[in-house]
């Protein structure tokens, strides 16, 4: 257990400078939103689709006040509550889509990199084609299609996101597998008769999985932006199903002209802060884990001040 902790905190303890700060700030920011997501029912004063309390209807587009910290929007919803519930939606979607990505992308990349041959070539061609395509456009198309089948639900959007991000995981895992495969200990394992499955599971997986956290966090950041983008275009999650920041911004755009600033500013800020937090974590991890970029905290060197000028003359006891 101790060893796990040491490994986990190594990015903090062994680095210095900007990278460390980025990591700290990023983790803090992300943590705030994770807390909001988990404890939404307790933190948010109202439900995300709640337009009245105790039988009294909320005001429409009310200014921020003590009753509604961030004001209300044109659908009579409380903005503050929707921001907090939005965190839960964002995290749900992102975690779901990432899980699917990892479950599909990592084994595919591992197998493709390990076995090579025509399977690998075909997979690479397909994945590259997906990768080359504008990911947001793909997301639009997928959600367009999946919405027909699933409706505008969390699942549809998550699957759309998975579809566009799987190529990235595939590519990274495949590349790492290709280089790890050439290691001599793998050759040795094969020499003593280890099966393909064992080799992949025991030797390569550990190596390969190391690149996933950085990719995962940066991916999560992008996923949240994509989710918000889809919501903005009206293609994602509908307002009554869950709170989603992008969709709220869509409605807020119309309010901009009439001097109503609170319906757009807060959801927008939420997106910026969460994505920034995740990106900082990803970049910070990259700087600390990537040996070519890493800057270690070196203990200062103190040379002996009076050194023997001539060993033949001095006696050392």
């Amino acid at each position, binding site marked *: 257990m101790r060893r796990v902790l040491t490994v986990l905190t190594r990015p903090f303890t062994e680095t210095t*400078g*900007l990278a460390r700060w*980025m990591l700290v700030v990023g983790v803090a920011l992300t943590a705030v939103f994770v807390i909001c997501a988990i404890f939404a029912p307790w933190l948010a004063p109202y439900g995300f689709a709640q337009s009245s309390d105790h039988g009294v209807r909320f005001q429409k587009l009310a200014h921020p006040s003590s009753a509604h910290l961030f004001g209300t929007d044109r659908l009579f919803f409380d903005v503050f509550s929707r921001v907090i519930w939005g965190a839960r939606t964002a995290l749900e979607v992102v975690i779901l889509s990432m899980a699917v990505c990892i479950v599909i992308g990592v084994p595919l990349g591992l197998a493709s990199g390990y076995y090579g041959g025509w399977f690998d070539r075909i997979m690479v*061609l*397909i994945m590259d*084609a*997906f990768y*080359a*395509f*504008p*990911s*947001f*456009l*793909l997301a*639009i*198309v*997928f959600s*367009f*299609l*999946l919405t*027909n*089948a699933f409706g505008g639900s969390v699942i549809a959007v998550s699957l759309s996101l998975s579809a566009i991000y799987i190529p990235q995981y595939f590519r990274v895992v495949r590349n790492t597998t290709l280089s790890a495969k050439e290691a001599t200990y793998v050759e040795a394992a094969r020499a003593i008769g280890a099966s393909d499955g064992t080799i992949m599971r025991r030797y390569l997986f550990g190596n390969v999985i190391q690149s996933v956290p950085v990719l995962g966090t940066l991916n999560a*950041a992008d996923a949240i*932006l994509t989710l*918000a*983008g889809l919501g*903005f*275009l*009206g*293609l994602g999650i509908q307002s009554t199903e869950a709170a989603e920041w*992008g969709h709220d*911004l*869509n409605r*807020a*755009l119309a309010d*901009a*002209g009439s001097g109503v*600033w609170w319906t*757009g500013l807060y959801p*927008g800020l939420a*997106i*910026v*802060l969460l*994505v*920034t937090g995740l*990106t*900082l974590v990803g*970049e910070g991890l990259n700087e600390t884990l990537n040996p*070519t*970029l890493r*800057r270690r905290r070196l203990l200062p060197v103190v040379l002996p001040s009076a050194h023997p000028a001539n060993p033949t003359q001095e006696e050392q006891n």
Partner: protein
Amino acid sequence: MSRGGSGSLPRYILQRILLVIPMLWIILTLVFLVMRVAPGDPVSAALGSKLNPTQLAQRRHALGFDRPLIQQYWDYLSSVLHLDFGTTFSDNQPVLRVVRDNGGATLTLTLAAFLIALVVGIPLGLVAGRYRDSFPDAVIRLFGILSYAAPIFFVGYLLQAYVAGPLGLPTSGDSSPITSFEIKLHPKTHILLVDAILSGDGAAIEDVLKHLLLPAVTLGLLICGVFIRLVRVNILQTNQADYVEAAEARGIRRRNVTWRHAFRNALVPVITVVGLQFALLLGGAVLTESTFNWPGLGQKLVQYINERDYVAVQGIITIFALAVVLISLLVDIINALIDPRVRY
């Protein structure tokens, strides 16, 4: 293995062009398959509410959606080769004409954003890499991250709410460029800016530029952050390169080493990635056009999606895919011009 001179450039270009063909084929196949992922058929989805079952069946037959999948695939490929991308459901126009009328605007926006991102992002990345961990580095990196994290529509929203007014720039609420131009210009190239310049009408040019500024800046900022990060990382890695140390061992001063060795070498891989960012830009263009009411292909796409116009969506997506492949070909060629190692 020594050679007299570096490899042949024309041969490399030819090879790359030939490689484009299978790539195109794969993308087209993918688009075809993806579009048929959804259950049910597109005709009912789009027109189900407007037509009765007999009419729907007729339509389905006319458009070929009741034929076997292979047949549809073949039809799709052959029509693409004839540059026939179908006719839209909703407004009965040939998709190609829609693209022609609106594509120019998207192209203008994308290029303008690209330029802004290059001009701002690359120098900032160079500075950040050179002065690692110092204050400028921190500020630049923070800027890069924030510009990426702030969604286009949020930045657009903020700009329109607070900046457009004071600067006298139009917002999405104002009359869009279409109404101010179509009266005056004969669309020759269908690219607003070019048409305006060709017409020589100063007011028209100014109007287009004023409409272009905020959207281009917004979209450019998005990519700017990516460039900054890329260039910076490359500078850091190049600085540790062996040939940099060898140059220092010959007494070349730090600033000369940085300029001649680190910067140039760091920029080479950036060129490749820069070209690939074009794909990112196209995606962002869709959002930007919606936010600013810029009359481009992206806005049209959203409109067709909301009307469930399957054929239109398929056609436009196909065009986008083709554009991306062509751009990456162009980028590869530029890369070969710059990096002598590439031209085997």
